[in-house]
């Protein structure tokens, strides 16, 4: 893999969004991944609808949580995703208002990725931003910098937040993952979180996945 990579520099990442008072991080992680996959395959960056997943993915639990693997299946079953503008985010569950005519993006499949962080870096640089799930220890009070909590405090067994890997690199020889969060731009580094790379910090390597767009 290249020594550093950032999909934000390549135009594959939409602006940071805000899930509001709703546990819908899973939807934001997945739409972020699909946005990247569509951009790489079709050359068009579209901001996609999380509300469609919140309302219409009946396997997941809307604001009470969900799994990216279920969300990918829901997108396939529904037939695709509408854009953010067409199906705007409200931050709470409502009746599914999906319209097949308004679908702008579809996916063909989804895959689970390696737990090896070097392989994840290579996959990211080659294929696009990656949906991951992490232990959110410390994130309530995170302001900036590269987070590296002690392993017992940030166990990979207690993953509780889904986010999007958009890049990686080094700051002062400390390797990091650049992570797009969904708590607005007034949190962290303009909405981004930087987590130590290479040590399995906070379980970042445990649940990596991506949609596949042919």
């Amino acid at each position, binding site marked *: 893999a290249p020594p550093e990579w950032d999909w934000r520099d390549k135009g594959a990442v939409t602006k940071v969004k805000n899930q509001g008072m709703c546990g819908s991080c899973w939807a934001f992680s997945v739409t972020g991944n699909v946005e990247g996959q569509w951009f790489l395959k079709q050359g068009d960056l579209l901001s996609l609808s999380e509300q469609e997943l919140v309302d219409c993915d009946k396997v997941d639990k809307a604001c009470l949580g969900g799994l990216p693997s279920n969300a990918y299946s829901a997108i396939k079953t529904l037939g695709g995703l509408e854009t953010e503008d067409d199906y705007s985010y409200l931050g709470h569950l409502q009746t599914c208002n999906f319209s097949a005519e308004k679908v702008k993006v579809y996916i063909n499949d989804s895959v689970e990725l390696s737990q090896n962080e070097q392989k994840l870096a290579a996959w990211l640089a080659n294929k696009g931003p990656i949906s991951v799930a992490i232990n959110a220890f410390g994130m309530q009070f995170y*302001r900036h910098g590269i*987070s590296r909590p002690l392993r017992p405090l940030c166990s990979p067994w207690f993953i509780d937040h889904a986010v999007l890997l958009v890049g990686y690199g080094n700051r002062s020889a400390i390797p990091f993952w650049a992570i797009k969060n969904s708590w607005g731009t007034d949190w962290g580094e303009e909405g981004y979180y930087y987590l130590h790379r290479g040590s399995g910090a906070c379980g970042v390597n445990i649940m990596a996945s991506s949609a596949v767009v042919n």
Partner: protein
Amino acid sequence: APPGRAAGAQSWEAASSELLGPARFALEMYNRGRAAGARAALGAVRGRVRRTGQGSLYSLKATLEEPPCNDPMVCQLPVSKKTLLCTFEILDELGKHMLLRRDCAPVDTKITDDRNETFSSFLPLLNMDPLPKDLSVKMASIFKDFVTTYNRTYETKEEAQWRMSVFVNNMVRAQKIQALDRGTAQYGVTKFSDLTEEEFRTIYLNPLLKEEPRKKMRLAKSISDP
């Protein structure tokens, strides 16, 4: 500071030799876990000391020189040495040192965080025994700053008082997280600082992620092309 000075008095012109002990302790904590060739070295140190009832509180600004990185496990391309500017707060009580704050950033970083300087300087006050008489005034002032910054509103005075107590408790939590972090992250006041841990977890996090079983997907092929 001259011996015999009253406890709590501030000494802003401490002799450099007095700062070296705490500075070396801070460096030792910074380098903990690092191999010999990867340890940072101490550069210039300046600071101040405040005397408390049972010890001294040192606030230091120090430059650390990070060695060049040639380990491909850490950095794929060699990285030249870097200079960091660090802020440390060390409490020395009865000869025992405790690191209360560690905040380092490259000297060329564009991120400034003047606001957190105030919040972090306040945290050691919470550990003093007895607590300073004007602590509640300081707490209220910083909480008011938070409310203004993040445009928080509370329905009743009682709720505002409750949220202030949660805020103070969270500042202590943030301090502990900071002390235990081995990276360069800074923790402190955020827009979530008036939420209890339970509230934050319930509203913003996703407990389903740790549950098994979850739907299995096929494993992607590794990238083999250069």
